[in-house]
């Protein structure tokens, strides 16, 4: 079970989505699949066809930059960061 920290731009898009969620999964991709099961549409907000992470979405696992195939250990912290961009 990993602890996923989501960016502030997401909770307003989904009913009852908290900023921090506990999700099962052995990889980042599986964790996102788990989020998609509970909040349909989440995959499209974080990923694009490929599949790959959207260009302005960064993921860190235990504070290391991660990709969709990065392994998640029990008790890992996963940070999903919306890039500092825009104006």
């Amino acid at each position, binding site marked *: 079970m990993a602890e996923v920290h989501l960016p502030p731009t*997401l909770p307003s898009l989904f009913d009852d989505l908290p900023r921090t969620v506990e999700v099962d999964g052995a990889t980042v991709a599986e964790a996102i699949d788990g989020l998609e099961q509970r909040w*349909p*549409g989440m995959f*499209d907000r974080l990923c*694009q*066809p490929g599949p790959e992470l959207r260009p302005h*979405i960064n993921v860190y696992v235990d504070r290391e930059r991660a990709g969709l195939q990065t392994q998640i250990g029990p008790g890992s912290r996963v940070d999903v960061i*919306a890039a500092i961009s825009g104006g």
Partner: protein
Amino acid sequence: MSSHTMLLVGTRKGCFVLESNGDRADWRIRGPYCDGWPVYHAVYDNDTGTIFAAAASEWHGHGVWRSHDLGETWELSSEGLNYGESEELKLSKVSGLSVAHGRVRAGTEACGIFESRDGGATWSLLSTLDGQPARDIWNDPANQPPGHLGMPAILPHPSEPDHFWAIVQGIGIFETTDNGASWTPRNRGLRADWPREHDEVGFCVHKLVMSPTDNSRFFQQNHVGMHRSDDGGLSWTEITEGLPTDFGFAAAVHPHDRDSFYVIPLDGGHGRFTPDGKVAVWRTSDAGSTWRRLDQGLPQRDAYVGVLREGMAIDDHDTPGLYFGTSTGQLFASRDEGESWDEIASYLPGIWSVEVATVAA
């Protein structure tokens, strides 16, 4: 039954709703909606009372928002709005929307048309216009203008559900009568000031409108010139003479008069703003033989504003009201067919689209 007039304004920072009672003198602004996502085009479905807004977030991708309560609450969907694992086509933006006959259609970048028949909850790809002239190189980056080649506009036929027209940026107009199964280019007679490899395509159509009183009467604002068709788009005649420039994006057609058409000419160079710092709408009342400048109440000095493709709308009152929004966030309204104007919002985010609807109270 009483009614009010509602404006849907798509901006760089969300969708805004403006409402006025029957006299269209005082306006109340609500918003921003859609979580502040950039909204390229927002439209209203008179049959269901639903607002649809095409959006693309830099962080979270594209989608179409919908509201069943005039903007109080919203839902977002992008289910089915993608090209799957296509190597050639990546969907980066939903550019334009149309709604008619219970079908919502979305034009996208890269160029394609998606359709929803469940009120915007799910979408499916209708067509990428395969087989049309030069289609094989439309998405070659070496052949594109700066930015992506997109499908910014879809014009539905008012009484034939499977019949509509689509604009492909820099390529031209295409007509289908079988809901996208087959297409015919409709650009005969248009001007192009650049070399083209195919006779039927290579035209830069900015905005296409159809007269509600005569469905064979079309007008268009092109990259080079204003044009009219009297045969449902089969052929075009240029009607630019009398206008200050041949460039512009927005256009509107009078709801009760097939010969009246409005445009906002812009400087066609790099600026693409109102010429000489003076804002004006131009009207023809004789199908383009003559044009008249309408500027009462509009800024006449130091006003370098742009008005984009979907930036002007006209309502269906007996004396129609006109509305246009600028890329610097000013919104202007006229209650008298463009004869005089008021600035009804001054500090909105940059405006990409303005649509108007008469809503039963």
